[in-house]
C-alpha cells in the first residue's frame, strides 16, 4: 500500500470511486458471458428456474454433444471459413483502392463519386429488388453470393479508410515518390499500404466479423444445404432442441425440455469463440486504429 503515502485524501477517494466504477462495469459485462458458459453445462430446468447463479449445477455436456455430433456443423464451419476469409479479402480488394482514389485531392470526380457512395448508405432498393438482381446475375444458390453482395464495399468502412489516407499520408510523400519514378499504383502498393496496417486490420476485422455473423444471406439466397454457413446450421440445431409451444400432439419431449437451454447457450459459445480468439491478435492495431482518421489535424 505504498501508493497511499504519495496521495492526499481527495485523490485517494477519487481513485477508490474510479476503481469501484470500473469493477462494476467489468462485472456488468463479464457476468453475462460467464453465465452463458455455466448455463451451457448445467441442467436447463435449474437454469430456467433461476437456481444457477455462480456455479454450474447438474453438470452435463449433453448440449455440446448434441451440437458436435451433428455432421452439418463441420460443413458449416468450413463454409463460414471460406466465406469469411474469401469475402474479407474481396472486401479489402475493393475498399482500399477505392478509398485511396477518393482520398486524392487531384482526383476531379472525387466529390460527386463520394456523394453516390454516401447516398447508398441511406437509401437502397430493399430486399426484393436485390433478390431479383442476384437472380439475374445467376448468383442464387452459389457461394459467390456471400462474397459479392451489396455489402462488398461498406460505405462506412470506405469513409474511415479514406479519412485515414487523407490525414496520415502527407502529400509531400507522394511528391517525393513521383520524383523517384512511382506512379499511383506503385505508390499505393509500396508506400500507402505498408503505412496503413492499423486501418487495414480494423476494417478487415469489421468485415470478418460481419461475414462470420452473416445469417441473412444464407437464409434468403441459398437453397442447397451444403452451402449454408455456420450460423444457419447452428440455428437449425438450436430450434430442433427447443420446447414447442404448439403442444397439440406435436412434441412434448421431456427430453428436449431438459436440455433445450443447454443447446441454446452451447450454440452461443460455439459461434462466438473463434472470433473471440482472433481478436487479441488484432487488438493492438484496433486500439490504435479505431479512432484514427476520425480527427483531422
Amino acid at each position: 500500500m505504498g501508493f497511499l503515502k504519495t496521495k492526499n485524501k481527495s485523490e485517494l477517494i477519487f481513485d477508490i470511486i474510479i476503481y469501484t466504477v470500473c469493477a462494476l462495469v467489468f462485472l456488468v459485462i463479464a457476468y453475462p458471458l460467464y453465465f452463458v458458459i455455466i448455463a451451457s453445462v448445467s441442467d436447463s430446468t435449474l437454469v430456467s428456474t433461476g437456481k444457477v447463479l455462480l456455479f454450474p449445477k447438474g453438470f452435463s455436456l449433453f448440449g455440446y454433444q448434441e451440437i458436435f455430433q451433428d455432421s452439418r456443423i463441420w460443413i458449416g464451419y468450413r463454409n463460414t471459413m471460406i466465406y469469411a476469409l474469401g469475402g474479407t479479402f474481396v472486401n479489402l480488394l475493393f475498399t482500399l483502392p477505392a478509398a485511396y482514389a477518393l482520398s486524392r485531392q487531384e482526383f476531379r470526380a472525387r466529390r460527386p463519386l463520394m456523394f453516390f457512395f454516401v447516398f447508398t448508405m441511406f437509401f437502397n432498393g430493399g430486399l426484393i429488388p436485390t433478390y431479383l438482381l442476384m437472380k439475374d446475375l445467376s448468383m442464387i444458390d452459389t457461394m459467390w453470393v456471400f462474397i459479392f453482395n451489396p455489402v462488398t464495399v461498406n460505405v462506412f468502412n470506405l469513409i474511415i479508410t479514406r479519412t485515414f489516407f487523407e490525414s496520415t499520408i502527407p502529400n509531400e510523400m507522394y511528391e517525393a515518390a513521383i520524383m523517384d519514378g512511382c506512379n499511383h499504383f506503385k505508390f499505393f502498393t509500396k508506400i500507402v499500404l505498408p503505412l496503413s496496417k492499423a486501418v487495414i486490420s480494423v476494417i478487415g476485422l469489421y468485415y470478418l466479423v460481419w461475414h462470420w455473423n452473416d445469417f441473412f444471406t444464407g437464409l434468403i439466397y441459398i437453397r442447397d444445404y451444403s452451402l449454408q454457413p455456420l450460423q444457419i446450421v447452428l440455428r437449425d440445431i438450436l430450434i430442433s432442441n427447443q420446447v414447442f409451444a404448439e403442444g397439440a400432439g406435436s412434441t412434448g419431449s421431456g427430453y428436449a425440455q431438459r436440455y433445450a437451454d443447454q443447446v441454446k447457450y452451447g450454440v452461443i459459445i460455439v459461434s462466438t469463440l473463434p472470433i473471440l480468439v482472433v481478436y487479441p491478435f488484432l487488438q493492438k492495431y484496433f486500439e490504435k486504429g479505431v479512432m484514427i482518421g476520425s480527427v483531422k489535424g
Partner: protein
Amino acid sequence: MKKKKLLSLLLTTCLATTTLVACSDKTSKEPEKTEDGRVVLTGLITKHPLTKDVNKMEWLEEAEKRAGVDIKWEEVSADWDQKKGAMLAGGDIPDIIVGPNAITDADFSKFKGLFEDLTPLIEEHAPNVQKMFDEKSELKVISTQLNGEIYGLPKYQRYWPNTGTRQFINQQWLDNLGLKQPTNWDELYEVLKAFKEEDANGNGDPNDEIPMDFAPVGTGGFGFFQPTVLLGSTGMTIVGGGGQGYFAEDGEVKNFFVDDRYKQVVTFLNKLYKEKLISAEAFTQDYTKYQSVARGEGETATVGYTYGWELTDRFGNELAPQYASIAPLKVDASSTVQPSWTYDYNVLNYGVNMVQMSSKTKNKDAAMKFINELYDPKVSMQVLFGSLGTNIKDNGDDTYTVLPPEDEKMDPGTWKWTSTWADNGPLYISDSLKLTLGTDMQSVGKQTEALQSALDAVDTENDVLPDTFLKYTEEDNNAMSLVNTELMNLAMANFSKWVTKGGIDKEWDAYVEKMNQIGLPGNLEITQKYYDDYKSKME
C-alpha cells in the same frame, strides 16, 4: 518483382472467375429425366425442426417411385416467411411446395398466375383426391377459392381430440389435504387457497407451492393452455383456446372480449391473483419456463392446478401419476348452465393449403400423380406416423398399429415428428382406416374423457365458429386483420392489467365503447356473412 507478379495474377483470376460465374445458365425447355425414366421435379417442404432429412424417409421414396417422379427436396425448418417473400416476389418457386398453410390464400391472390389451378388435373390424374372430396365435402369447400379455383389441397387427420387444452389438478395434494376435486369456481378457489397456505406437497416448506399456472398469454390473442377455458363454465364455446375472441352462439357470431361473461372470468382471475393463487410469473415467463416449473424437483411437484396437452408432456414421467384431468367447472354450485369447453376439433384435424404446385412446372401430370399418391389412405397414414416397418406395423388383416419409439428414452410424439412429415404433410385419414394409435395419443384420449360429456353436448352446427374453414376475399381479409390487430393491442393489454391490478368494473363500459369504435361490429358483420355462406354450402 515476383511478389508483384503473383499479386496481379491473383487479382486477375479473382475478377475473371466472378465474370465467369455469372454465365452458367441451366434452363432447358425439356423436363429432366433420371436414368430409369423418372421425371425430375423440385420440391420444398416447410418441416418441423425435429424432422429428419426427408431423403431418408422410405415411404416418400416409394411414393415418388410409384408416381414416376424423382423430387429434389429443399427443406426449410425456420424463417419461412422471410424466405417466402423473396421467393414469391422473384417468381422463383419450386414445382411443389408442401407445408401447413405455407402459401396462404392471401399469397394466391397477391401473386396471381404463380400457382397452378389444380381443378382439371385432379379430374384427370387424382382419383384419391377426388375420393377425399366425395367423402368429406367440407374438404372441398375449404380448398376452393372464392372464384372456384383450387390452388392448395387440405389435410384431415381424424384422430385428434376435440380439444387441445386439458385441465389438470394434483390429486396427491388434494389427498394430502383431505380435499375433493373442485367442481365449480368457488370450490376451485378454496382448493387453491389450501394449496397456498398449507404444505400441500409435504416437503416441509409451506411456501414453495404454486397453486395455479397457465401458459404465457401472447399479444395477438389467446391460445391453448390458457385460462380462457373458464369461459366454458358460462356456457360459451370458444374455438382454438380463444384466438381473437370470435365465437358462435345459436348461429350468431360474437366476440367474448366485449361479453359480460368474459368480465366475470377476468374478475374471478383477478380475485385469485390478488390472493397470490396464480403464479407471480404467469405474465412474464416464456413457454419453456412454464414447462420447466411444472416438472418440479424429483418427486416433489410445485404446481397444483394448470393446463396442458397431456400429463407426461406437461409434468414429465416422474410427476405425471400425481395429477388427474378434471371435468369443466361450473360457475357456482347453483348454476344451471351446461358447462362447455374450448372446441378445437377443426383446428387440430383440418389444415388448408398443405400442398400446391407452381404454374411453371414442366410436367404437371407427373407432379399431380405424386400429389395424388400422398392422399392414398395407406400413404397418408405413413405421412402422419412414419414408414411401415419402422413406425407402423402391418397386422396383415388390413389393420395397422403405430409402433413405440425405437429409442426408449424418446417419447412417441418426438419420435413421430423425427421420422416423418407428421402434421405438416398433406394427408387424408379416411374414417374407414383401422389403425391402433400410439401410447401418447391413447393417453390424450383417456385424459379427454373428463371433458368429453361437455364437448359432446356442444352443438357443432350453431355454437362452433368454423374458423379454419372460412375463406375471405382479399379486401375483407385486409380490413379485418387491421381492425383485429388494433383490437388485440387494446384487449390483451387490458386482460393482463385487469387480472394483475384489477379495475375491470370501473373501466369496462369505456373499454367496450372503445372496442366498438375501433371497428368490432364491422368485423362481426363480415364474419357472420361468411359463416352463413359456409353453412349454406355445407347443406
